[in-house]
């Protein structure tokens, strides 16, 4: 799971943080050496993007991509996944003999962790009180508060 301040790092070099976000980030940096080091490293990208010519070149390359109208990677992956897993919706079948293994599949940012987090209390509150063990294919068994 991303460190609490890590989500703001991406806005530093592009200079797109709001005043409140800046305040949060810089206050944290004064007390956190890892964040301070990360921001110091990010300065190189900031300098690169501060050059108007470099910024223009980068923006132009991104706008060319947008106009080319190609099919997005996400759309291709989503269609592949849908074809693989099926188009129909079906009810969740919980095994009478635990454990029930549920695999969460989705594109990055599609909400796998969020959905799992929302399912957790619903399953936990059931009379059977089955524990939820999030497992990552790369990290193995994770604590309950970690993303799947």
């Amino acid at each position: 799971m991303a460190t609490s301040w890590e989500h703001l790092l991406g806005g530093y070099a592009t200079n797109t943080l709001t005043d409140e976000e800046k305040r949060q980030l810089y206050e944290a940096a004064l007390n956190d050496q890892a964040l301070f080091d990360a921001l110091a490293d990010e300065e190189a990208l900031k300098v690169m993007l501060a050059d108007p010519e470099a910024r223009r070149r980068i923006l132009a390359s991104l706008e060319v991509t947008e106009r080319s109208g190609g099919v997005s990677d996400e759309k291709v992956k989503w269609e592949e996944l849908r074809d693989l897993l099926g188009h129909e919706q079906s009810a969740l079948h919980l095994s009478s003999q635990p454990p029930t293994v549920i695999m969460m599949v989705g594109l990055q940012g599609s909400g796998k962790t969020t959905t799992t987090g929302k399912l957790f209390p619903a399953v936990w509150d059931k009379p059977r009180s089955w524990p939820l063990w999030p497992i990552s294919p790369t990290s193995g068994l994770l604590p309950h508060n970690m993303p799947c």
Partner: protein
Amino acid sequence: MTRDQIIGQLRERILAFATSRGSRDVAEDLAQEVLLVLHKKYPQVTELTELVPLTFQILKYKMLDLHRRNLRRGEYHQESIDDQPLADPGDDPAMQAEQKERVGQLIEALQQLGARCKELFRLKLQGHTFPEIQRIFGERSINTIYTWDSRCRKQLLALMGGRWGTTIPQAGEGKKKTVERNL
């Protein structure tokens, strides 16, 4: 938080950062030089949101300056001073060329990202804030945008070889070492 309190904490952070990238003596000199610039040239800057980025800016230039000074003194390569050209006070052409090359690498790396990451980067470069990007994407939670952006940043950094900046050798070391490494 007062300016003195902020500067006191900044000194500790700069010292630890510079020590992790070189010797303690060099780190102390570097921290001292950064604070001196803040004290002499920017006494009017008191806000945290201005002082911290200003410090990073000065730190970067002081590190580059130190690298150039060491290069001229022959700290990395024992060469005759007669073979070294006179120092140019302007921008180093080699640095400029490397910067241009890094921009090219960044453009190539961006092309390899997914459509969403490209769009996020484009919107940020156009000056949109995260709350504005949230509205453009029509997302209910800003945390979704933060998560996407954090992942896109990591992908981009990996495609850039794990660092945004140039490679600067450390004083007293005979070979190159990445100074501006990233997480």
